[in-house]
């Protein structure tokens, strides 16, 4: 190593060396997620959402929900690139991009977008594209860029580790759908934050889109095996689930959606998991209703966050004008 000529093209490491960070093993029997205070299943976690933090773009927002941290930048409407293949765009072209920072999850990620990031990007596109009044911005494109700075998502690594260590081939039951729940919370956060950033950019929209997640578990008091015996076991619906369940119920399915509350329209729906065939439709309806309720809850925060910066500007303009009186403060927690 020392004999090798220093590599001048790349970032050289510090001369004194570094110690790699050591994390607690996630494969040990203590996958204890963030010690979240217990909350009722119909209550979503507190949301921190603020707009206008990036000055170099048209609109931006930053969102925090417990461990999830992400920032959204909106660029445009800007002219289409010269090399654009579209002959004439009567409506604005929306592009969405979701990227996990390499340090966003316990398992380090690459710099190139992987399949789950592309998947989240296309789902975010679907959630937003119907809400934007794209016909007002011909021959232009609007870019939504999401950077996830911290998340509960661990990719598919958790189950892999369980198998590799040879102790348990079968992942523990609450690991089922674990990454779907984590990605669901991320997607819902992306949708809510992207709406706030679009509003901050001053792009005209039919309605704000808020994201909501809900999961359904077998009720903890029931025996696990009873799930197949028709309508026997109870179901437990949890809004905005953390990746480990609140109780010992077996996870069944997770629903993520983008919801326009003022129009009562769902712009994006993603359900993964398994629901019984007999009572499946009713369960699915109930699951969607729970996710809609979660989206309604986050909409309240979204409204206040979208107004907050404008209110600040208005207050500032009024304080400059001595004849006017100041406005009210806005509450940020949901």
């Amino acid at each position, binding site marked *: 190593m020392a004999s090798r000529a220093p590599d001048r093209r790349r970032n050289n490491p510090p001369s004194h060396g570094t110690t790699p960070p050591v994390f607690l093993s996630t494969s040990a029997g203590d996958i204890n997620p963030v010690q979240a205070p217990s909350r009722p299943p119909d209550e979503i976690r507190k949301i921190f959402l603020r707009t206008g933090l990036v000055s170099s773009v048209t609109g931006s927002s930053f969102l925090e929900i417990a461990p999830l941290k992400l920032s959204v930048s909106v660029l445009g409407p800007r*002219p289409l690139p010269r090399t654009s293949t579209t002959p*004439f765009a009567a409506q604005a072209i929306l592009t969405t991009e979701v990227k996990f920072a390499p340090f966003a999850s316990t398992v380090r990620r690459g710099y190139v977008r992987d399949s789950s990031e592309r998947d989240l990007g296309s789902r975010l596109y679907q959630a937003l594209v119907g809400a934007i*009044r794209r016909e007002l911005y*011909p021959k232009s494109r609007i870019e939504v860029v999401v950077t996830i700075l911290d998340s509960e998502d661990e990719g598919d690594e958790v189950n892999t580790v369980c198998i590799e260590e040879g102790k348990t081939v079968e992942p523990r039951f609450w690991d089922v759908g674990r990454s779907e729940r984590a990605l669901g919370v991320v997607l819902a956060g992306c949708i809510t934050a992207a709406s706030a950033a679009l509003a901050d950019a001053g792009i*005209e929209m039919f309605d704000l889109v808020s994201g909501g997640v809900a999961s359904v578990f077998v009720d903890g008091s029931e025996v696990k095996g009873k799930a197949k015996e028709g309508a026997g076991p109870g179901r437990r619906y949890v809004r905005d689930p953390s990746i480990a369940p609140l109780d010992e119920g077996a996870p069944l399915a997770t629903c993520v959606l983008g919801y326009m509350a003022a129009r009562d329209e769902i712009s994006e729906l993603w359900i993964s998991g398994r629901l019984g065939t007999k009572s499946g439709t009713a369960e699915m309806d109930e699951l969607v209703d729970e996710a809609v309720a979660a989206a309604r809850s986050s909409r309240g925060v979204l409204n206040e966050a979208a107004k907050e910066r404008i209110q600040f500007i*208005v207050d500032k303009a009024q304080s400059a004008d001595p004849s006017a009186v100041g406005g009210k403060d806005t509450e940020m927690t949901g």
Partner: protein
Amino acid sequence: MTSALVVPGQPLGPAHAYVPGSGVHVFNGQIVSSLVGQVVTTASTSTSASASTLTSTPPTISVVKPSVAADEEGSSATLLPDVNSEVLCRVTRINARQATVAVFVVNGRVCGDDFQGVIRVQDVRQTEVDRVRIFTSFRPGDIVRAKVISLGDQSNYYLSTAHNSLGVVMANSEAGDPMYPINWREMKSSRTGVVEERKVAKPF
């Protein structure tokens, strides 16, 4: 007549009671906000209507997003040229058929990104269109006031200077000196006095 802040999707009133202005749309018979901003209601000021008929025309309702400062670029970030917009542009290259320009001001507001446009030879002036030559009308680097006549094709907005008030407003001579207009088709160098041909905009 401003009021509290509204968010996109918030209903503002029945569609028959107002005329929708900017920043709003109509949904299910309701005027709905499209922006975060303040509601502005202005009584209709129709020039043809007399004062007594004003009550019959409903007021215009619109939502305005307040900008950080009066003339800061944040307000114009979503600015796009439209047909009949008056723009300022810089000539980037010319050929016998058209002048290619970069639009940087739309309706008196600076836009975030330059938009590419062309002024075709038949759109340079109103009369004697056959005798127009691009080389005696524009030169690269000139600042031109023009009007958008079409959104054009995928890459270019189509602009026109076929009006007395439209044309070159600022230009440098071949030697690089600023020039001032002496008539509608000539400009004179401020240093050497050399006269060059341009399609000059009528000064206000």
